[in-house]
């Protein structure tokens, strides 16, 4: 490998800034990871102008195809694209194997936990998780108690947000067991790559992600009510005003199922039907992309206009299947996150393959002591709040702020957790100034019917602002094509 030749051209001035880099590997950048060599060589042969021009074409295509999410202001609905970064993010086979088995393990534990919570409740009796962690969560659904679901699968579609530390280790940052989105970008980014950068991807051993729709459709078919041979599956969307509407269209098309809204469905005698030009036709499985709350005004929020009156009763009777099941929100919140490694050991008698970010529970004695002793090094988060509210970032906090934080923790220890500052890996990214390192994460998608399948790819989100660790699309994030290599 000729290192000097590689560091000419497009990547000549690239410096990962002391972070783990998805293209070059460890921070030293001394011995670039071998699985990206072919890609690096191809990139080197490309000019910045050419890359920029084609990246522009790719984004124009996204806009013209309407692969957009909608941002609402007071006056307007603006269609935005998720910016596409042309430089892919490769993952080598051995790393992927770990990720895949780690994600599968985690999903299995989540489903076992949900089954237990809504039935036997051993997890509380065995004092693995304090009951109030679950029962004080507004996403706990008492309506689900004792209700059987096919294969004991609750989280049919699960998204895991993974990050990589400076030493190259992947961690799970968050579980998404309700309605994870983003999978359409996993597939569309690949299509875009094939159309606009055929010379980059040609002959590369990249695993295909294009059969996601068929895998999902098959899993949904498996959970149909007993005795239904040829189930009718529909995708229930809040409608065209939902910011993820493109993804709903995408998935309905890929699965070849009808994309419906609540007003298209009716219930009669505890069965669900769809209004068609031939009258009412039975529906057996609903992939719903609306929240538990909004599903059925009779059972949940009575003000919901998006749902289907009577749907829950039909579900209770086993006449229709829902994916995901109702009440999965207790498995993916911040409070429960800290218990995930213990839940994996408890239910599966295995060590977690993918570590959590180390999380200190202030409700526990050691966690509290550690947190108080290292307050200036840690990120302190309230368990019940969302959206970054109430977070104290130790290294950036003033003495007064740290003191305030200490008093809050001591006041209600069970309300707080702490985590070390974690850095995200970077990947070379095309920005105004050329090619620079930007932080990335990875969302994987697991589909579970009878068994679990993890899509060999994912959505790599990239923080386009320099130094930013926030990859969310609403905050200036973009995405990359994720190459899982064979």
């Amino acid at each position, binding site marked *: 490998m000729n290192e000097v030749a590689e560091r000419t051209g497009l990547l000549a001035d690239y410096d990962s800034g002391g972070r783990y880099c998805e293209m070059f590997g460890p921070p030293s950048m001394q011995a670039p990871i071998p699985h990206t060599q072919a890609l690096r060589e191809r990139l080197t042969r490309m000019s910045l102008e050419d890359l920029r021009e084609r990246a522009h074409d790719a984004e124009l295509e996204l806009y*013209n*195809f*309407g692969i957009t999410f909608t941002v609402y202001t007071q006056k307007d609905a603006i269609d935005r694209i998720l910016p596409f970064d042309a430089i892919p993010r490769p993952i080598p086979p051995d790393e992927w194997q770990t990720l895949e088995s780690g994600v599968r393990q985690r999903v299995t534990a989540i489903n076992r936990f949900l089954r237990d919570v809504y039935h036997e409740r051993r997890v509380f009796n065995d004092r693995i998780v304090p009951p109030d962690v679950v029962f004080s969560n507004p996403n706990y659904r008492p309506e689900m108690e004792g209700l059987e679901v096919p294969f004991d699968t609750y989280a049919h579609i699960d998204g895991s947000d993974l990050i990589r530390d400076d030493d190259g280790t992947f961690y799970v940052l968050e579980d998404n067991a309700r309605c994870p989105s983003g999978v359409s970008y996993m597939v569309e980014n690949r299509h875009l790559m094939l159309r606009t950068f055929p010379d980059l991807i040609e002959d590369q051993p990249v695993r295909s992600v294009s059969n996601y729709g068929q895998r999902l459709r098959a899993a949904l078919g498996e959970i149909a009510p007993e005795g239904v041979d040829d189930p009718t599956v529909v995708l229930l969307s809040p409608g065209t005003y939902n910011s993820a509407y493109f993804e709903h*269209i995408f998935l309905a*098309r890929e699965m070849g199922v*009808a*994309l*419906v809204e609540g007003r*298209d469905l009716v219930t009669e005698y505890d069965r669900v039907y769809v209004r068609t030009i031939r009258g009412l036709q039975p529906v057996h499985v609903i992939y719903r992309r609306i929240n538990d709350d909004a599903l059925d005004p009779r059972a949940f929020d009575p003000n919901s206009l998006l749902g289907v009156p009577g749907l829950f009763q039909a579900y209770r009777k086993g006449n229709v299947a829902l994916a995901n099941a109702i009440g999965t929100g207790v498995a993916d919140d911040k409070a429960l996150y800290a218990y995930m490694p213990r839940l994996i050991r408890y239910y599966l008698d295995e060590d977690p393959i993918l570590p959590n970010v180390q999380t200190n529970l202030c409700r526990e004695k050691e966690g509290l002591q550690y947190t108080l002793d290292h307050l200036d090094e840690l990120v302190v988060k309230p368990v019940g709040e969302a959206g970054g509210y109430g977070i104290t970032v130790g290294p950036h906090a003033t003495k007064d702020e740290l003191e305030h934080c200490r008093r809050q923790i001591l006041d209600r220890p069970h309300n707080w957790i702490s985590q070390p500052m974690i850095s995200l890996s970077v990947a070379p990214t095309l920005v105004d100034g050329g090619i620079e390192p930007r932080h990335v994460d990875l969302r994987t998608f697991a589909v579970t019917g009878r068994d679990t399948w993890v899509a060999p790819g994912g959505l790599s989100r990239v923080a386009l602002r320099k130094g930013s660790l926030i990859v969310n699309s609403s905050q200036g994030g973009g995405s990359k094509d994720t190459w899982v290599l064979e």
Partner: protein
Amino acid sequence: MSNLLSRYADAIFWMARYVERAEDLARVLDVTETFSRDSRGGQNWRSILELYSDAPTFSREHGEATAAAVIRFYTLDDRNPSSILSNLGMARSNARTLRPLISTEMWTQLNIFYNRLRALGPQEIAEPRLARFCSMIKEGCQTHTGITEGTFYRDEGWCFYQLGKQLERADQTTRLLDSKYHNVLPSPEDVGSQIDVSRWNALLRSAAGYHAFRKIHPRGMTPGDVAGFMLFHEGFPRSVAACVDEVGGRLTQLRSVYNIPGATAAMGRLDDLRTLLDTDIDGVIEFGLHEYLDRVQQYLNALSVEIGRDLLGHAPAATSAK
């Protein structure tokens, strides 16, 4: 997906109507612009407002009906629901709803077309450039029609598409004729005369019917001939008779090929319409052209309402989104 959702059938039907309406509105504006190059120019622009029953709204919002104001109202005014921009916006919005069903190319073209239109400034529709603007609209709409013809899956959805398109086209042809009635036909005695050929000429051209007309009538051009051609000639794709014929074919197809129940009332209204069309231009003139066109429009509307009720799942009391 074996069964078409009622909501999708409705969205297809109206997507076709909105695009057809935008195209035909461009045709009306185009021919009006040609007519207005004479002393009665102002009257011509006001007549469009009457044609679409928009005069009260217009005068409330915009005051005097100058050429520039009326053109803006019907082209790029996003507050006017019957402007070209609004029609294509609604077509695009329906296409967005229909993306699980329609081809990617159909959606992409409408999306780009609409976004391009939205980016146009007022100078693009100033009178000297209006003809070019109208050409662009016609071309964009026809591109949609062509892509649809070449890519849209042929099942019930296609029938609903054609129903919407043909009903709208028939309605618009009657309006196009009616709009020029006062200008081109000053008195009943002139029906058989050769006067003002240039205006009938322009009218035919705006409906892309001039050359077809010349095939049938190689010599001469009377108002009666032109009106008869646009109403009854079955070979002319924009004639009312040809559109109604197409509607009948699609309704029959839905009923007997696709076994859709409940097209009975629509078939009844279709028979009424066919009876009304079973005449010739002399009969029409005796009846009064304007009155006749008015009645055809009423019958078309009645048919549209029945299709909505029978096939598109509209509640009995609901009226069409027109």
